[in-house]
């Protein structure tokens, strides 16, 4: 009864599936822009259209403003993120390897995980002043918390038989740790790094909205005061693109470092 429609549907989706994904991506993108343009051109909403936003984007690039904003946001994110990861990995290993360390540290981690990092900003500003320190600290906190949990989950889920296999080959703890525990938990750690970078990026923008004199978030906050919608759009799009690029970068590193994993 439904062989006909099913058959024709399969034929249609097959021809679509034959297209390279990049083409499909571009089609979807063009479609989105077209919808955006149609809605704004018809004045259905009070928003700038793609053309306005594109023009403002060119202006901001030409004046160098956009680059300055991007660089100051990126600098904050990378400083906080690298510090966070640099601390999270050893602490995560400590928690995974030593029961005592886990019992001592875990309550704090679980507690602070429940506080949105942005909620720490008022305290950070009061105690650290209004320059870079409070923002970097908040980003540090955000990336530390998401990465530390992933790391210690990774350590505790290392296959016991791999540890035993190393022991019967003569490995002692100080060999097992670098040679078995670290590589075996790398996939988990990299997932944590990826989540950490995502939350760091989300946090920096929000932190700049609250307290900053530069950066993409600050630019949006300024634009909001002057009802400058195109600038807000340019900032939003930049935030999205940069976030995507960073995620892809970590993903590529992840794939390289864990190519030994069996993937289904």
């Amino acid at each position, binding site marked *: 009864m439904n062989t006909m429609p099913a058959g024709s549907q399969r034929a249609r989706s097959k021809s679509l599936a034959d297209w390279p994904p990049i083409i499909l991506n571009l089609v979807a993108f063009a479609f989105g822009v077209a919808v955006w343009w149609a809605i704004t051109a018809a004045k259905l909403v009070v928003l700038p259209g793609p053309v306005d936003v594109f023009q403002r984007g060119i202006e901001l690039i030409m004046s160098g403003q956009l680059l300055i904003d991007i660089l100051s946001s990126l600098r904050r994110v990378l400083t906080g993120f690298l510090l966070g990861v640099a601390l999270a990995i050893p602490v995560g290993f400590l928690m995974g390897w030593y029961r005592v360390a886990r019992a001592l540290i875990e309550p704090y981690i679980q507690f602070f995980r429940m506080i949105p990092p942005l909620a720490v900003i008022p305290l950070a500003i009061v105690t650290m002043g209004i320059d870079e320190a409070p923002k970097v600290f908040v980003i540090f906190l955000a990336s530390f918390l998401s990465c530390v949990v992933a790391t210690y989950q990774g350590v505790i889920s290392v*296959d016991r038989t791999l540890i035993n*296999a*190393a022991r*019967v*080959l*003569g490995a002692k703890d100080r060999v097992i740790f670098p*040679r078995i525990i670290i*590589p075996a938990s790398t996939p988990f750690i990299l997932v944590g790094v990826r989540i950490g970078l995502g939350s760091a990026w989300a946090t920096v923008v929000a932190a700049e909205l609250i307290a900053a004199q530069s950066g993409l978030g600050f630019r949006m906050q300024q634009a909001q005061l002057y009802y400058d919608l195109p600038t807000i759009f340019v900032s939003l799009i930049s935030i999205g693109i940069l976030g995507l690029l960073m995620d892809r970068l970590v993903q590529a590193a992840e794939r390289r470092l864990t190519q*030994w994993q069996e993937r289904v």
Partner: protein
Amino acid sequence: MTPSQITDPKISFQNVSRRFGAGDSSFLALDRLSLDIADGEFVTVVGPSGCGKSTAMNIAAGLTDVSDGRVLVDGKSVDGPGPERGVIFQQYALFPWLTVRQNVEFGLRIKGMPAAERRRVSDHFINLVGLSDFADALPKTLSGGMKQRCAIARAYAVNPSILLMDEPFGALDALTRVNMQDQLLDTWTRERRTVIFITHDVDEAVYLANRVIVMAARPGRLHDIIPVDLPYPRTEEIRLSQKFADIRNRVWHAVYHQKPQIEPSIQEEEH
């Protein structure tokens, strides 16, 4: 059948008991196992699931403690793993981030063997198990049989005088399994080791062994020891012979028609 026939045993289980858990819920996994294994002997261990085969092997490997009794290797009491005892696990346990060669060299590296010598040793054993073409492959690209061969090469490379193998061929199909048995015996005749080999397969147990150790469950204990009076090298001809069939029947009966223990309650209360 009496252990005392063996003078200077390579491995000696002496009244080894192992209890898991404490109090009322504790469980006697191994009850006073005594067994001597001669140097260069190949013994296989069969018995129903849960009879303590793995427990006994892990104790000999130094990965599990005894509750009572002791295991002697070369006359010395076992205290933790040692390089003279190689272990081959059912789940292969290859390090997935290392290539075949790096896996085989793992134990040599720990010993601090120089790179050139390491290379020579790993070449030798990779060749011995027929993986030369895959020396630089990651484990994920190998079949089950190849993984197990790599694990065997890795265990051999550190030159242990004892090999402990816990159902190493359990996950393999019947054909690969027979191949692996022949290869293992071939390797064993060329590089003589003392082997304890656990299996569920009665055929495999008889085909490989000098002696088949049959265990019984609840509590895990020694049930019978059946000598396999067949010459090496073992061939297909031997596998299909009447004598093989007779021994096989004997082992089969010992495994599948075990009389229930006469006084299990008294046994339990003794501990």
